[in-house]
Structure formats: C-alpha cells, structure tokens
C-alpha cells in the first residue's frame, strides 16, 4: 500500500516539502527501486499505470526532461510561522491530525484552518493526537481511545512531549 512516507520524509526537520531524497534500492531479486526526485519515484509504478492520464504525463515529461514538476502547494502556512515536521513526527502526531484523511480525498485539499488558534488548541490539549508507540503516524484510520489518551497524558507528565505555547516557538 502507498502511504504518505512512500514519497515524503517528514524526519528531515525543516524540509519544506518533505519529499524523499534520491536513493536507489536493489531488492533481493535484482529489481532496482528508485526513491527520489522528479518523477523517478512516481515512474516506478506509472511507467505502466494510467500512462494516458494528462496528470501522469506531466510527471513523465518531468522525468524525461529533468525539469521540476510544478506541484501545487495546498497547505499554506504564512512565512512568519516557522514549523518543524520533525518535532511532530518524533512526538508521534499523525499526518491526519493536520492534513486530514488524505486517503479519502480525490483531489487534495486543506481541511484544517492551520491558524494560530487551531495550532494552540492542539498544543494545549494534545492528548487526542498523540499516538502510542507502535501506531504509525501514517495510519489514516487511527482514532484516540481512553488507553491512548491515558498514555499520552503520561508522556506529557513525564515531559517527553512538551508542546510549546510561547511566541518564539514558531515566530522569529
């Protein structure tokens, strides 16, 4: 199954678009899987799948020509807000908490306001978004339950997770 992490690498700190780095992986059977930039990753599958789609052709063209793909930026944060994916992924906050159910979107859209009030709401009460160990951040189906909330509260009490609420956490 394709998950968010197939293409995105949220561990890379302030990496703005989180796209995976270039790397070629040779599997046991000799197949070379290419993770990486412009179209290379997509073309692993789309060499054969839906080649007639105009959107896929854009990717194929980019792969061919080496020009960057002009992706539309959907989630817009203002320039004066500095945000780190790394911190959130390390705290095990799910992708869906901010990006919504991407698996159910035909066309990707922004479902949360990404406003400061919305950020702070979660920073003040993060229990329902902190996933327990073993649950992938990319799991789209996961929802909080009493056990996960209790575990999250424990992590907060232990200061393993300290969501900041002061200005310079995001503004500088």
């Amino acid at each position, binding site marked *: 199954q394709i998950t968010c992490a197939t293409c995105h690498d949220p561990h890379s700190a*302030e990496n703005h*678009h989180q796209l995976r780095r270039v790397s070629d992986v040779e599997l046991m059977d000799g197949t070379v899987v290419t993770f990486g930039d*412009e179209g290379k990753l997509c073309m692993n599958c789309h060499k054969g799948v839906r080649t007639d789609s105009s959107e896929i052709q854009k990717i194929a063209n980019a792969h061919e020509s*080496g020009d*960057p793909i002009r992706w539309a930026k959907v989630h817009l944060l203002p*320039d004066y807000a500095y945000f780190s994916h790394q911190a959130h992924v*390390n705290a095990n906050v799910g992708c869906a908490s901010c990006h919504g159910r991407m698996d159910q979107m035909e066309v990707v859209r922004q479902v949360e306001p990404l406003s400061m009030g919305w950020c702070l709401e979660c920073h003040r009460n993060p229990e329902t978004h902190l996933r327990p160990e073993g649950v992938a951040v990319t799991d789209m189906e996961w929802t909080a339950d009493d056990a996960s909330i209790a575990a999250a509260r424990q992590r907060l009490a232990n200061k393993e997770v300290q969501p900041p609420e*002061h200005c310079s956490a995001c503004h*500088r």
Partner: protein
Amino acid sequence: MTDMQIQPRSSGSAGDKVYWRSLDQLADTPEFQDVLRREFAVGADEGPFADGSLADPVSRRRFLGVVAASVAMAGMTSCRKPGREILPYAKRPEGLVPGIPNFYATSFERHGYGLGVLVRSSDGRPTKVEGNPDHPGSQGGVDSFAQAEVLNLFDPARSKWVRTPHEAEGHDDGDHSHDGHDHDGHGDEHAHHHTLADFRSFWGEHALKLAGNEGAGLHVLMAPTASPTVARMVAEARSALPKIQVHTWSALVRDHEVAGSKLAFGEAFDTHHDFAKAKVVAAFDSDFLGTDATSLAQTRSWAKGRKIVDRDGSVSRLYVVEPTYTLTGSNADHRFRLSGAEIGSAVFALAAALGVPGMDAAAKAHTAGSFEKNGKNWLAAVAKDLRAANGEACVVVGPRQSAAVHAAAHAINAHLGANGKTVTYTRTPAALAGDTLASVRSLVDAMNAGQVDTLVCLGTNPILDAPADLGFADAYAKVAHRVHCGMWIDETAKASSWHIPMSHPLEHWSDTVAADGTAAIVQPLIDRLYPNTRSTAEILSELLTEPKEGDALVRATWQTRKPSGMPFETFWQKALHDGLIAGTAQDAATPTLAASAIAAAISATPVAATPTKQSIEVGFRACPTLLDGRYSNNPWQQELPSPIEKLVWDNAVLMCRSAADALGVYNSDVVQVKVGERTVEGPVWIQPGHAENAVTVWFGYGRKMSSECAVAEIPGFDAYPLRGSDAPHYAAGATVTKTGRTHTLVSSQEHGVMEGRPLVRENDLATFKADTQWTAVDASPLAKAAKLQGKTESQLMHSLWTERDYSQGYQWAMVIDLNTCTGCNACVTACVSENNIPMVGKEQIANGREMFWNRMDRYFTGAATQDGVPLDDDPQVVHQMVPCMQCENAPCESVCPVAATVHSPEGLNDMAYNRCIGTRYCSNNCPYKVRRFNWFNFNKDHSPQRQMAFNPDVTIRARGVMEKCTYCVQRINSGKRAAKGDGRTVRDGDIRTACQQACPADAITFGNINDPEAAVTKLRGTVDRKTGDLVTAGSPLHYAMLSELNVKPRTTYLAKIRNPHPELSCADALDHRH
C-alpha cells in the same frame, strides 16, 4: 528624568573620573539636554519627512531607491494567500535537504593573506560568513569585512558585462538614478553589452601581436596576493611572454614593513606576535586589532592575554603610541598621542633607553623629543617595563612607519629576548615581498615613456588609489589598450578601453596562503551570478589565450604540490572539507640581525620635525569600515558606526578639540586641507585623543563609480588626491583652513544615552587583586545602600508582583566580557547578517532610527583635567556591546497593550511582530534602549540579488513594528531540535548566537543558567530566587547593567580590568573604581 548627572567640562577636578559619550554631553549643551529628554533623538518620533535642522541632500526616498536598487517583485503584494507552487530539485545536490543550511569551508584574502571562513549556504545561497576555527587566519572569529562579503556578492550594482570604450566612458556618467527604480540589475539594458567572446576575438589577434614581441609592451597591474595559483599563472605568463611586466599595487601599502625586515635581516620576513604569551606589549602606530594585516588572529591572541575572571588571573599590559585613536589605542592601558612623524623617534629613543647594542649612538639623536606626560617620562617607564618582562614582551610597529623604524623594532625584540617567545618569523611569500610603490612608479614612467601598449589593471583601481603625484590618469590615457578587470564599473573602468567583470570569491575557485603559510582552497558557494565574470587566475588564462575554468587551474596547481603518496581526490576532498591544507604552515625562521645596517639606517633618518599649527601633519588611513574603498558600495559597512567616532555614511577630517578650537571650527564645518598644491575639502570631526597639530583622513569615500553604485556615490570626500608617493602615510607641512561651509556628519553615539550611571565598570589589576572585598556589583547604587544595612543588592530587591519560576528547563543567558571585547563591531555585522536587519541611511540615523539589534557603545573616560590638557583631548576609551538584556522582569512587556512582547518559559523576551501595533510604549519603557522600530518599509523593494542574501530562518519585518535581539532564537530552536533528535539535552556550547560565533576575542559567553556546569552559570554565580542570598559565587567581575532596577537582566557583563604601570598609573589612569 529630572536628575541630570552630567559633568560640565569645567567642573571636574583632577582625579574625578568622568564618563561621557560625546563632546556635546561633556559640554552639557542645551541641545544635549534636549536629546536626553526625548525617547528617540530629534525627529525620530516626528513625521516621515521631518528634516529638522538636517540639510542633507540625501532624502529618504532617494536612499530607499539607492539601497534597494530594485524592482518590486510582481505578485508579492496580495493580502490574500496567493496560489503557490512547489518546485523541488530535479536533481537534488548531494547532502542537501531543502530548508536545512549547510556550511562550506572557503577562504577570503586580506592584505594578500588568506582568511579561512565557513559560509552558510541556505538552499544554495550563501547567507552568512562565520569563522573557521581550524584556520590560523580566523581561528573561529570573523570580522565585519568578511561578513559583509555576502552583500558584495549580491550587490545588484556589480558589473555584469564586458564593456568597450564607448560604454565604459560614455554611458555611466549620466545620473539616471533619481526615480530609484531603474537599478534592477538590468537597468543598463539600454547599453550595448559585450560578452567574453567579444573580448576573446579582440584579444586573440592582439595577443598574437604581443607574442611576436615576446610580450614587450604588455603590462599587468595587480593587487599583491600570496595565492599559489595566481603565482603559477603569472609565472606561466612570464615564460610565454618573457618581456611582460607585472606590477603590484594596493592602497594598503605594506612596503615599509617588508623593507624593514630586509634591512634588519637581509631578506623579507613576516613578524608574528604571540600576544597571549606577552606580559607587556608596546605598539607604535600599529592598529593590530583593527585595520592592519592579520588583525583577526592577533585579536584572538591578544584577547587570550587579557582574559581574567577571578583574582588569581592576570592580564597583559598594552602601551600604544599613535596619532589618531584606533581600536588598538582604545584598548591600551596607556596611550600616548604623538604625530606620525615623531613615532619613529619614539621607537629609536626606546632602543636607546633599552641599550640595544650597536645602535644606541644612532638612536640617541632621537631622544631629544619629549615623551613626558604628567611629569613622568613615559618612554622610560615603558622601557623599564619591557625589560622587566624578561622576554615575555614585544614591540609592534605599524605599516605606516619607515623601514628603519621596523628594523629598530626587530632589534629591540631581539634585545628583549622576545624572539622565539612572543615573536616568531616566517619568510614573506615572494609575491608579497616587493616594493609596490616602486612598482607602480615604474609603471607610470613606462606609460609616460610610451613603452606601454597594453595595460591590464587586474582587480586594481589605480585611477582612484595610485599616489596622486604620479599622475596615473594622464599616463593611462597614453596607453593604447587599457583593459580593466573589476567587480564594479569603478574609476579605472570608466577610463579603460575594455572592462571585464570579475567574479566574487564566493563564486569562483582559487587558493590563499595565510600569514603563517597555511594554504587553503577557495571554493565557490554559488555558480557565477553573471556568466561573463572571471577570477584573477581565469583572466590570466584569458590573457594567455588559453581560457580555463578556475576549478581546473586550481587543481592543476595542487596536482604538483599535494603531499606525495596521497591520491589527488582524497587530498582535494579533505582540503575542501577542512578549509585548509594541513601541513602547509611554515616553520619558524631564525633570521640573523644585521645590527650595523640598522644603526646606519637610524643614523640616516633625520629627526622628524614636530608638527605645528602652521605646518600640520596629515595622516592617511584605511577607513575602519570601508578599508581602501573595496566596501564603498556596501550598505552594511557604510552604516556600521566607526569604532571611535561612531560616524556613519561619511568620512571626516579628524582632529583634536584644541586644533578645532584654534581653527574656529566644530563638527561638520568643512575645511580645506592643503598639502603642497594638492587640496581636498571635508567636514571636521573632533576626535578626542587625536594628536595635536595633526589631522587624519580616511580613504574609501567620495567615489566616482558608475551611477549604479549609488551607495558609494553618496557619502564623503575622496582623500586619495592628497596622498603622494613620497609621503604615503603622513604628509608634513599641510595647512588647514576653514571654508565656511558645512556638511552634516551623523554619528550614532548620541542615541541611547544612559545618564551617567555606572554602566561600564572597571578596576585596575593591582587594586582588584589587593582589595579582596571589591566586586563589580559594588558600584550599583542599590548595592551601596544595601551595604549600609549589611546586605547585598539582591536581598533588597523586591518585585511588585509574583515573579515567574525560572528554575525549570533551559534558561538562556549571556555574559559579555568587557576585558576582551575590543569594540571591533564584528558582532554588530554578525547580527545584521543573521537577523536580516535593514540599513536605514544617514538621514534616518540622524533621526535616531537606526535598526541595529546590538550596538557597540563607546564611552570616553579619564580624569577631568591633567597636565593642562583638557579631558576631551586625551581620554581613555571603553567599549560596551549592548544587545537586548532579556530582562526577567521585563519593563517592556508590562506596557504592551496588545501582548506583542511577552516572556517565553526559557527566559527570552519574545517579540511577535504580527501582534505589534507600533505604539512604541515598550521602547519608552526599556531602560537599555535596545528596541528598534521600523519607521518605514525598509525591506519592501529589494533587488532579486539582495533578497538572496537574507537568512530564510528569520522573518523579514515590515513597517510599523518593533523588533529587537532574540538571542538568535532560530539558532536556539534548531540547537534544541538537534539535541532532541539525538535524544539528549542541549550541552553547553551547542548553541552559539551569531554575535558570539563571530567575536574574534571570544568575549561573549552564552548558555543555560539551569546547567550548573555551563560557563555562563559559573561566571554569573547563583542566587536563591526567594531570599536573594548568594548560593554559589560567580566572577567578582560579574555585574548587571542597571541592576538596581530589579529588571533582572539575563545579559550581564564582566567588568574591565586595566593594568596600568605603577609608575604611570597616577598619571593617566586615575581612580578606575567605578
């Protein structure tokens, strides 16, 4: 604000130490009182076009046009979220993650020597220059010049095209800069531009002709450089064209230094001083902490010798003899002002007093001059002190003194037993050992004799900076083919038949050699911004009609020089990674002194006449911020206040108060300075401590570059026309006359006045060691009151409201050491570069609207009158860097009506720009005046090039908001994140603020005060927050500025310890216990 405590000039009695910031303050004028009563200076809080008394022709509108030099970016002004695209790298470079900056090691060149740096690359753009701790030229520190290189690289006015005579001479004289919107980097599109291909097609044919004559008639004038690749290319040119003539010239002449060592040793040697090991240093006209060669390394070594944190420590002693106040003089324990001509005599007299063998007879002729100060023979005391140091002493002479003086200094150092201890020698690279004055003179002679068919000015600008008496411009006009290579359309470019644009060191390959011989590779941080630009070595290959890329040229040099047995790629990658080539440092040489030659040279030196009111001495200096003019078009350097005068955007005729009084002039009055038949006119600035009957002028101003170089075009007067080849440093017999006109000079010194409270505290070493009860805290008024009750200051401090609990987590703090801080301004530029601080221009600074987040305050100190010399003629100087104090009980926060400035749990005083509505109440309530207000949209119209120099990790502020020092919170956040990623807490030293990183003196300590092992905690000590009782003692020198206000600043200071000579101490260093 009722209780003014300013000492009027006449009221201080001998022995009272007075601090003042400027002459107006000392004079207690009504104007100054008015400044004190205002929150901002005159005009700062008035309407946008209030010009008050300031009649400067540079309007704000013009300034914005000039500095921005840009077109507004289309489509960036929408107030709705614009649609955006993500364009990832098609082929992402190795090791690059978008958003994460990388550092690359490279090297700059100063005075021909290498200066290793690390450059931050933010998404492929070089955005910040930092020191390379491994490189001997920087040792981790960096100065304002190296940091300002980023702005030189992205200067939209740089030359981009090859030009031919018609364009170079004709098109750039017209002033088309009034609307300020045609300088978009393509504003010269109406001109017909050439590419390198055009030059090549000309040169190919021309070179054939030259080669036919073995290069006869081909001359090259280049700047002195120790670069091995450039040396190799010059050698190649010489072997291909045996009759080619290569000349060297730089306005920052070091000829005397070279000649002095040739005189003393028979060969050219470079002198290296280890100030860290020296107990006593006597500097004669040497600005080794400021503009003289290798100042970065010397600052680090000097600071090591001045570091003191407790009573067990010790500091070196520095004597300075100089005509004009320099950074070095301002750090002296004893300073003797003396005209430049007489300084040689002082060195000879010192040699006599020390009994240097073989030359005492010669030296005695020079002892007639009086070195008396306050009834004490100053020089005799220095001699005694030097001798007593038993070899741990050295004498330093600056490049402005004659060869005989340098030779005498070598003899003195040998006699003192300093060689091998505090003084070492290495061979001067051949390329730097020439006589540049003779070289440029022979070139002019050849041009006048019609022997020069083609002259290539390679990275030089002789029309501006060649000695005026040589008549370079007239001789140049006689040359048939005049090729100029430079980064700007400068004075020489305009007079040339071909101009080739040069690349910046951040965009080309080259190599450098540091003063100790350590080689380093210069690697590009970015591709050429303009495809026609070339480096020095590349242009030499063009001249040989075998154009090669710099990469290939530098590799070829090192193919033969790399250590044998190492594969080239391994060697190359390591050299690039380290920023230096290990093992290339020279071994120290032990040259033999030729005593008789030195004695003969001293005998042949006539005793210099003391300047008089009728025969004034003019001193020529590199500007402390623009050097010889290479930073003239750099707004950061133009706006950086000079270290002593705090002048911005101007140079001046510097003189002492008595000289100005005698002329009947005051600051900003224009005078004419006449040397022989040559004259210049410039405004007067009174520099307390300047030698009498002498004036000093700086180079770098009054430039006549192309109209695109509008930053350089505005300010100052050109001092080069006064400088002759016979007297390149000091011209005697000048006259200075009043013209009756004025040119308003602007100094940043009047702003942020702190009303005579003990802001800078100092003591002398002997008292500090003897009086074990004294601590720097004692000077606080509240501490004095507490002492009467048998308590400490912190025990008396009570807050009106419940104080926050700062006992948990990280709590950031900074300690600034006033002992090692030299006042060099590196921290100021570091902050500007790191935090995207806008430059505001002269007029706005006059209005008190400068934007520097940290400022370097300079106070003059000294006894009110001594020896009949008024205080303001011969004072001492202290420097104090003032960033935000990050008060725990921050007064700014309590008055903000919109909670735009609030405290973070880590003790930072946060500023949220988007909340700020610009009431400026916070600034009103800040006791330190460290908050800055954006009166205008200084960041609105930047050229695309200039935008590339911004740090993407810091918000660019718009009009109408307050801003201030954040302790580089972006660095704190990324340091915390990195530590957390490694599963640990932040260690001491993990996070370095920009000012701390840059500081060549290592005067800034930053860290977490909840970490008992942190350096900052050890300096501060700890106090029980409830009772105010001392828990662990910090340094006795530690104090907080205005601690009596109970604002509990996190930024604190270590008091200055001076080390006066006991026999001179009562003479010019009176009661220092402030």
